[in-house]
């Protein structure tokens, strides 16, 4: 069992082509797919001012979102960018998982994506760590 917050985050960051391909393979197992929403729009990006502690909007981001229903189970996704198919694919995966359809396949796919992302993060961590600087004064 994977936490919803975890798999939605991993799928939003995964390569869109892989997510779409995986969702495509799921579709035959899903019947009566109802697309409630599939659109692009904006999300406001509030940020906390570190010196006064107040919130302000650092900007906005373009995102694609999808909301689907499959046999009573609702699925939702939002991912940065304007790829409506990517959002729809993730929403379908979310609905399938909520409806306990193809759970082991989904878990395996998410685990593989999570491993790739963890590896990329670890590599970046290491590269940044090597730029640590110890300043000396004379």
């Amino acid at each position: 069992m994977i936490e919803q917050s975890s798999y939605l985050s991993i799928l939003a960051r995964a390569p869109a082509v892989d997510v779409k391909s995986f969702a495509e393979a799921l579709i035959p197992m899903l019947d009566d797919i109802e697309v409630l929403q599939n659109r692009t729009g904006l999300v406001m990006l509030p940020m906390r001012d570190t010196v006064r502690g107040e919130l302000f909007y650092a900007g906005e981001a373009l995102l694609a979102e999808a909301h689907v229903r499959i046999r009573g189970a609702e699925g939702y996704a939002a991912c940065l960018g304007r790829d409506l198919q990517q959002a729809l694919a993730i929403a379908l995966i979310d609905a399938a998982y909520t409806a306990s359809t193809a759970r082991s396949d989904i878990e395996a796919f998410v685990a593989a994506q999570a491993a790739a992302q963890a590896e990329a993060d670890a590599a970046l961590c290491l590269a940044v760590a090597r730029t640590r600087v110890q300043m000396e004064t004379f």
Partner: protein
Amino acid sequence: MYVAAKGGERAIQQAEQLFRELNGTFDATFVRLIERHMPYLIDRVMGEGSLYAPELAALALAQTGGDLYEAVLLLRAYRSTQPRLAYAEPLDEAHTFTVRRISAAFKDIPGGQYLGPTLDYSHRLLHLDVLDGRDSAPASPDGATGDPIDKTGAADLPFDPHPPALTDWHRRYGLLAPLPDLPPHDPASVPDVTRDPIHFPAPRAHRLQSLARADTGGVLALGYASMRGYGMIHPTVNEVRLGYADVRLRHPVSGALFSAGRVRVCQGEVVTPAGSGSDAHPSTNGAAPPAALNPGFTATIGWNEVKVIAGAMLDLEMEAANAHPAHREEFVLYHTEAVEASGFCIHFKLPHYVTFNSSLDAIRRAYAAVQQAEPQ
């Protein structure tokens, strides 16, 4: 007075065609190349356009032949066609993968200083050999192009990509005033310059949002004037931080928090000893300062260090009771708005025949009146 003009449709069509012919056409591959290889340019367009959309920022640059102001305008115009769907959870240090963090004020900061991806300490030499066919490569410590970065093995010290805010450390030691008791945040109720006009003195949220989307050149020009001596302060960079922040949203059905992806963000803080400059910090009301340092802050989407450093200095300047006129809040915020400023500037290219001739007529009448009044 503005008067409508008509005509010139064919000339306009031909002018646009000539623009494409002289500046080259573009396609999806070219746009992807810009997105991949010009990230700082993309960041600047997104920051000033106030819309995080790297693909569209690259398209805007391609479509305008690299004209920054036109590209920013295209992005802002696109933004206006999109509905507002959600408010993310506040971007913060705990959910930002930091890749660069430096301080010019304190050399030993908790979590350490990391140069991250930067050319700050590189030789400013053109790699002319690239023009002769040699591939570009990361620079080695001696400045020559050398081996790619080593991604294997371990670092000397572990790196935490989520270091705490340096200002929290300052507050523990009384260098900064404690944060006031703020009500629980509601991201949807933050004052928003895209929906409400700015009234002065502006809410801090308006000031910081305006700086976040301000024209980089404008912020730099006014900030540089402060640095050169027109300002009241001489601050030090407390922290510059670059990172990838998670955009966290709530699932509308379950309420679960998840990340819709990461955005590049940067923030800058400057500090100056409290009471320094020609006047005391207004929050001290002339009394003994509550803490040793007065801070300034600016952040933006995308990585743009010049803008956040200059912006943070202007944030401090705008707090001064008798700031230079060019560093007062109204002056800074109104004159660094990229689209309004560039738009007003280029509007002068449009036909002003009626207004200009009206002025000429007035001058001619004045001359005639003077000549008539003069004794023969």
